[in-house]
């Protein structure tokens, strides 16, 4: 499975909606200081709820809403692509049925192909701060359900697959006790 698409709407320095397609393998992201590269990584952490607002350099969740717009909401949607060897027999059958439909079919337009999985998160300014709404495959979901699904792929707030800017320095400066505790967590 890999990320095949990230849709970012009004999040941090993204004023309005931005669609970014991704492919398998080795992709670099580059550009000047302050252009928004780390914000793309933050959008993944935000959508999958892998970190706190502070780790995304915001004092509170509503700081994540683009400050150039008047809109009181922002959203990130991530689409994962499953590889055929990851699909169950049932899913393979559903995928064949889906692919058999004509491209202009309304049914097809409304369906999510069985080999794709989407997670989205939207925050809105609310009276007491903000509210988050999660979806999994376009159905309203909970943070718990999404984390439970992701943990099967070893993706969690404690996992090491996302190295943020400055994390390497953190590992370098770690005390021997802290370093050993990392092994405890894994064991």
């Amino acid at each position, binding site marked *: 499975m890999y990320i095949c698409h990230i849709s970012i709407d009004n999040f941090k320095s993204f004023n309005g909606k931005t669609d970014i397609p991704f492919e398998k393998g080795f992709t670099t992201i580059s550009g000047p200081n302050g252009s928004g590269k780390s914000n793309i990584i933050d959008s993944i952490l935000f959508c999958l709820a892998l970190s706190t607002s502070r780790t995304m350099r915001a004092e509170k969740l509503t700081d994540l809403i683009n400050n150039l717009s008047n809109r009181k909401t922002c959203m990130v949607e991530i689409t994962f692509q499953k590889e055929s060897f990851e699909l169950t027999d049932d899913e393979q059958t559903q995928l064949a049925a889906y692919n058999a439909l004509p491209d202009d079919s309304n049914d097809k337009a409304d369906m999510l192909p069985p080999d794709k999985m989407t997670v989205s998160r939207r925050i809105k300014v609310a009276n007491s701060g903000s509210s988050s709404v999660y979806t999994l495959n376009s159905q309203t979901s909970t943070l718990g359900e999404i984390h439970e699904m992701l943990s099967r792929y070893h993706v969690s707030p404690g996992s090491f697959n996302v190295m943020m800017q400055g994390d390497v320095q953190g590992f370098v400066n770690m005390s021997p006790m802290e370093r050993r505790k990392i092994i405890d967590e894994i*064991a």
Partner: protein
Amino acid sequence: KRGAFQKSFDEIDGHFRSIFETLAAGDGHLVLSNPDDPLNSGMTLMARPRGKKMQRIEAMSGGEKSLTSLAFVFALQRTMPAPFYALDEVDMNLDGINVEKLANMVVGETTKGSQFLVVSLRKPMIERSARTIGVTQKAGGRTHVTGVRLRTAEEDTGNTDLLH
């Protein structure tokens, strides 16, 4: 509890040794300050870059520290393979040759099927990636993603000076 620790320790140590050899052409391993009482022990990374004496990470140069820590993080990642990996400017301290080695390592991992999204300002990293997403800033601080191109990072960022 302690058996589980030892099992994880040995697994991560094994990964660290082979990754460090690839990345730094030298010997590296994990060391417990108190092997008989691991749960009250500290752990350090010992390494001998080729030609030098074995030293603990605290004594190494800035670039050597980064490279050794990266090898450790990759070893941790190998114990829990994920669908994607995102690395944000992990190559800051490294000289051009070490950036190249790190990039080659990422190439090796992706040929096994992993997805790596690597934020970098360094030319040797960008050159070895299959494609680059260019990110620029429009008036007022709006992020603009300029599109995904193969090996034309100069066009994307509009400025090769960036990559030095």
